[in-house]
């Protein structure tokens, strides 16, 4: 008696082919996305962008800059890019810090004036005299400054071996009370070899590998979020919030399908309500529902995790409403596209999880390959998270949100227009 049950279920599943197809497409799609993000199929290695400000302009600092520029893992910038390709002045310590604060770039390295006179610390930073390197970073990206710090040490070892050796000898000589003539002769011979090697490197040869160690003293400083108690709370409040908003909006929009199936939609449309009015009403309701859901989430984050909501209330309202209307419009479009609740469930799960995975709701976009980061710009999640990050993390004014708000509203208009067009099938037989 079990087989007839299986047979009936199979027949019912075969009747709903979109759901059947999605049950296979969904896991394959997700596997592929995660494979691209974490696997070996990167079309480009994620590189860390870093601003380099060389105030020192000594031989040692130039060698360090050249060595860092040769690092494949770093994307070194010394001056802002402009759309019209006009020449821009080099970054200064001030403009570099502003760029990190604005979220244009995660890390900036400042080589202060006078650093080249005494660049090495030999693990005793307290014994080092003179200015030290400044590593400015955005605390929302914990990985970038650590990578830059590590690569800086490597660059110092491989890019400026002569300086390292000369200073090393000075330290050693001072520590042991001077070298014997024989030791000094052998040292000079080795230094001559290193000079020879450096000249070859300057001509384009590959840098030599050398010993490792924390030799360059670096003072790291978070220029964004240094006073925040819970650095990633605002990020994940937005990231998770938007993802669940999408689920809520698509579920709520599904009421349209229920009404169409029960005949209620027909009855409503025979009254004074038009299809545009009906959809607009549902859009408004779903927008308010989504905004309320977001507000409750941020209030929870404020009450429990000390997110500074009161100081950012205007920014939250602007971003919350923009996000809510975009999300509600997507829900309306999905509902108008589907013919049954089962189809809506399958399609919305597919769309929402893809958007959330590439849009930054599951893992931060800066850690994704560049192509994936660009793909994320086609998602509501990415623009919403960027906007909320500007408000809560970077403390930027509401005027700085114009780009995110414009994109989200444009998304809402396009999606709602499409939903209205597709909903014509319900208007008349």
């Amino acid at each position, binding site marked *: 008696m079990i087989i007839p049950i299986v047979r009936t279920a199979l027949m019912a599943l075969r009747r709903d082919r979109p759901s059947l197809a999605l049950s296979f497409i969904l896991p394959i799609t997700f596997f592929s996305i995660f494979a691209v993000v974490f696997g070996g199929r990167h079309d480009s290695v994620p590189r860390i962008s870093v601003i380099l400000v060389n105030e020192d302009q000594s031989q040692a600092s130039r060698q360090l800059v050249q060595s860092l520029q040769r690092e494949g893992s770093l994307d070194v910038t010394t001056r802002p890019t402009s759309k019209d390709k006009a020449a821009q002045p080099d970054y200064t310590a001030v403009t570099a810090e502003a760029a990190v604060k604005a979220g244009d770039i995660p890390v900036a390295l400042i080589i202060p004036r006078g650093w080249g006179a005494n660049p090495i610390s030999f693990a005793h930073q307290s014994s080092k005299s003179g200015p030290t390197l400044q590593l400015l970073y955005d605390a929302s990206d914990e990985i970038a400054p650590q990578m830059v710090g590590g690569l800086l040490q490597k660059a110092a070892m491989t890019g400026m071996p002569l300086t390292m050796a000369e200073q090393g000898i000075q330290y050693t000589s001072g520590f042991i009370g001077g070298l014997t003539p024989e030791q000094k002769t052998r040292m000079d011979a080795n230094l001559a070899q290193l000079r020879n090697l450096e000249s070859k490197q300057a001509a384009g040869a590959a840098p030599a590998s050398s010993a490792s160690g924390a030799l360059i003293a670096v003072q790291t400083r978070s220029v964004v979020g240094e006073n925040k108690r819970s650095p990633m709370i605002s990020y994940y409040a937005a990231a998770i919030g938007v993802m669940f908003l999408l689920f809520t909006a698509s579920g709520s929009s599904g009421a349209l399908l229920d009404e169409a199936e*029960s*005949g209620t939609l027909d*009855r*409503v449309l*025979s*009254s004074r309500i038009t299809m545009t009015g009906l959809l607009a009403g549902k859009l408004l309701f779903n927008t308010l529902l989504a905004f309320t859901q977001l507000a409750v989430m941020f209030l929870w984050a404020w009450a429990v995790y000390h997110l500074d909501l009161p100081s950012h209330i205007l920014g939250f309202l602007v971003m919350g409403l923009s996000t809510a209307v975009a999300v509600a419009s997507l829900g309306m479009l999905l509902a108008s596209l589907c013919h049954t609740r089962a189809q809506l469930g399958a399609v919305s799960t597919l769309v929402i999880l893809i958007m959330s995975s590439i849009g930054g709701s599951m893992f931060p976009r800066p850690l994704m390959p560049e192509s994936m980061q660009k793909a994320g710009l086609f998602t509501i999640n990415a623009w919403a998270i960027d906007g909320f990050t500007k408000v809560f993390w970077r403390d930027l004014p509401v005027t700085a949100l114009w780009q995110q708000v414009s994109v989200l509203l444009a998304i809402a208009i396009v999606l709602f227009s499409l939903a209205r067009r597709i909903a014509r099938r319900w208007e008349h037989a």
Partner: protein
Amino acid sequence: MSANSKLADPTANSPLPLEVDALVKRFGQVLAVDSISLQLRSGECLGLLGPNGAGKSTLIRAIAGRVIPDSGRVSVFGSAAGSPAARAALGWVPQDLALYPRLSARENLSSFGRYYGLAGDKLEQSIAWCLKWAALEDRAGDLTRNLSGGMKRRLNMAAGLIHQPRLVLMDEPTVGVDPQSRNRIFEMIAALRARGMTIIYTTHYMEEAERLCDRIAIVDHGRIIALDTRDALIHNSFASRSQVIARLEGPAGKVSAWVAARGGRLADSTAEFTIEQPTQVAGLLEGAADAGLELIDLSLRRPNLESVFLHLTGRELRD
């Protein structure tokens, strides 16, 4: 009276509640409505009688403005179907239970009232009237999904009348209800008729059409094949003839041969004959015993709408 003939309207200066002119609607290869024309007088109740799939609901939906006809014209009190004026004048009780199951009876009525632009006291008065009319006053606060099938049907009707329309379309309002609830619905319709409401009532139950409607349109394959009062329809098909229903027992071959020889029709061992005068009954049954048949039951009846439908189409109404 033919289906296409014009009515003499007593209020000649005011537009008729409904005028349908040469309406055609196709769904793919299926011709759902085939050039239907009809008119409705103020205060009249017109029955659309026909089997399932005859095109009744499509016609109703076209009048409600929910189906765009391929050709033809529908006007409600002089306004095109689907226009704001037509929508305001027309109440539609769909065949499906088109209600919000998670709202109470009162909330449903309130929602649909607002969709028609009612508010304030006018809305409250209309809700009160509808609840009383549907005998749902004591269940007004109950969720619709918790109401019985008959109550849901009555609420479905009430929701179609919340804006006090002048013309009501009722699409098989008694589908799936028990006899008691059906009688309650008949009482509701009688109350509307007493108020002078103009009604179109679709059904495939001839008793309902006979009981409730002034005129009856018999619909089959998308066409109105006859439209008149009940008595006129019967008279046009049968004049003064009567029907004899006889149940006979005997060898099957003998029964069918005997019935066929007398121009009768046999269905489920019951023979049906049409006779010009009731006095012909004795002659009709003469010789049955000689043929080896036993007469179990016999009745004489005047033809009804079922007989008319059978006469006009050659099929039973519920086929």
